[in-house]
């Protein structure tokens, strides 16, 4: 029910969507694909990242400022200034990352406003928050890879923040640096994290999708063109250039901040590091626990569908139709006329009744709303004077 959400926000959202439907119809309404938009940007990131990876060199050597110096910064420079379309691909990669954070936040907002995160949907919510954190971290490692002065500042800030953690701090900082100081090994570690973690996202996405049948992962092509076009226009409007090459013997102090990914560094710079960690972990846990009350104290607890085993013929329609993968076909006991019988996993059931609508044998029921009662109600209405 919408009752626990500020009603004004929901009404506003529905009105905006109604207006959008009037212009582009429900077939092309981007609000109805809010989960698929970040997924599209993920594919763009993989592809553009692959192209950049072909020319990127993860080293920090700058001891000899010679003409043939080859390190991360010069390789990025080479991509931007020499490779045909290199600057555009770099821009696409960077802005697709920003776009992914924006679309994830909009997705999370719509999920919250339309009340699609509670009870049987809690895994989607929690994995979504974890995925957002992973995306933010992957994006930050992307900023380290350029190895300009900003990268150097960010790396040092991260190391000092990690060192503050109790017990594990110094160990994690050493893992992060791949040693005790910034070396070439550090930058190849950053590259490994950047690529490895971004593929780990696919595992997280599997968890995010696993309790949904036929998840909507692809917006229609017309929307995909607009999503891509936005990136291309922004690449023109805001060309990307690197800062000065990093010199580990220097201590630069300021950098341009990309608010989508680097806001934690703003926090780090303006508060005590312990407070920073407490705030970060606290806010993450609080957001993850948003569906918790509904799991144990729901206002309208779900009464899961129940199969009437004597009537089930194993036609699989309820299992195929269930939107939340809550019905599983199991082998029928020996001696049964049928091969399969349906069983409901009650903790996944949403109480929607799509299974009831799918069953031609009256073999599955919602306990609080029997379809025979509904049919009786319909008949009574039709027959009354």
């Amino acid at each position, binding site marked *: 029910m919408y009752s626990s959400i500020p009603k004004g926000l929901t*009404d506003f959202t*529905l*009105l905006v*969507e*109604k207006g959008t*439907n009037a212009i582009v119809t*429900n*077939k092309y*309404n981007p*609000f*109805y*694909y809010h989960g698929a938009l970040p997924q599209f940007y993920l594919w763009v990131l993989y592809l553009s990242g692959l192209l950049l990876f072909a020319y990127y060199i993860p080293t920090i050597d700058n001891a000899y400022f010679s003409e043939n110096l080859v390190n991360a910064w010069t390789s990025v420079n080479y991509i931007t200034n020499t490779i045909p379309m290199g600057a555009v691909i770099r821009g696409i990669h960077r802005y697709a990352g920003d776009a992914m954070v924006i679309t994830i936040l909009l997705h999370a907002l719509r999920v919250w406003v*339309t*009340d*699609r995160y509670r009870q049987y949907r809690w895994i989607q919510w929690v994995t979504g928050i974890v995925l957002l954190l992973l995306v933010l971290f992957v994006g930050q490692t992307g900023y380290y890879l350029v190895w300009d002065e900003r990268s150097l500042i960010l790396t040092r800030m991260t190391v000092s923040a990690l060192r503050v953690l109790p017990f594990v701090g110094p160990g994690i900082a050493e893992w992060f640096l791949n040693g005790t100081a910034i070396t070439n090994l550090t930058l190849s570690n950053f590259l490994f994290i950047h690529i490895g973690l971004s593929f780990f996202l696919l595992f997280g996405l599997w968890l995010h999708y696993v309790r*949904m*049948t*036929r998840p909507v992962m692809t917006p229609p092509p017309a929307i995909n063109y607009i999503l891509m076009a936005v990136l291309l226009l922004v690449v023109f409007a805001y060309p990307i250039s690197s800062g000065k090459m990093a010199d580990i013997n220097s201590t630069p102090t300021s950098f341009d901040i990309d608010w989508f990914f680097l806001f934690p560094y703003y926090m780090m710079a303006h508060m005590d590091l312990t407070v920073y960690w407490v705030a970060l972990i606290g806010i993450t846990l609080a957001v993850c626990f948003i569906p918790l009350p509904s799991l144990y104290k729901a206002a309208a607890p779900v009464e899961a569908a129940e199969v009437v085993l*004597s009537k089930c*013929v194993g*036609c699989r*329609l309820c299992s195929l*139709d269930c*939107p*939340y993968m809550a019905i599983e076909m199991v082998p029928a006991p020996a001696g049964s*006329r049928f091969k399969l019988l349906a069983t409901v996993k009650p903790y996944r059931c*949403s*109480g*929607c*009744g*799509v299974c*009831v*609508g*799918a*069953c*031609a*044998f009256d073999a599955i029921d*919602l306990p609080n*709303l029997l*379809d*025979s009662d*509904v*049919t*009786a*109600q*319909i*008949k009574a*209405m*039709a*027959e*009354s*004077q």
Partner: protein
Amino acid sequence: MAVGSENKVITLICERACDLSSVTDASGEVKEVSGLHVVKLPCSGMIQPLMIEAAMKAGAAGVIVTGCQLGDCYYREGNRMIRDRLLGNRPPGLKKTVDRRRVLALWLARPQKDRFLSEAKEFMHLVKGLGTPTPAPAAASKAAAPAASKAEDKTPEEKAADAKPKVSKDIPVNPDATVDGAKGPER
């Protein structure tokens, strides 16, 4: 078979589609449009074609199925499920004896109450023009006989459903009854 003194249209609507609570009274009748009754379900996907057939058999002039906007079902797919069932793209489907002109499906979001009322009024005019519905089982079985003879058109599920002894809901059925009627219903 009791036929209402006015044409009755039953609306099967889901809880999160257009919000009709302001125009519906406690018994489910819509005050503005005479003859329009509303039955609420958690999701339009819960609608069994059986319910539509029952409504027609009981004398309703038409049935309106209403769900959320396509693409925005609160339970993800319910509205597409019932839409596919009505169009015959997904089992179970509507029996061939049901007059397709008397079934309308609307996919409306919560603020679209006015759109619903205007479509419902138009639909009521339409079904009035179609004349008195013929819910009599005799007519239905005459039409069903040639339909039933085309056995190869039916899916195995429908064949099994036809093989099941047809009992009405108010006669107790032996819970141990199997599809081939080995232990038949007690009459």
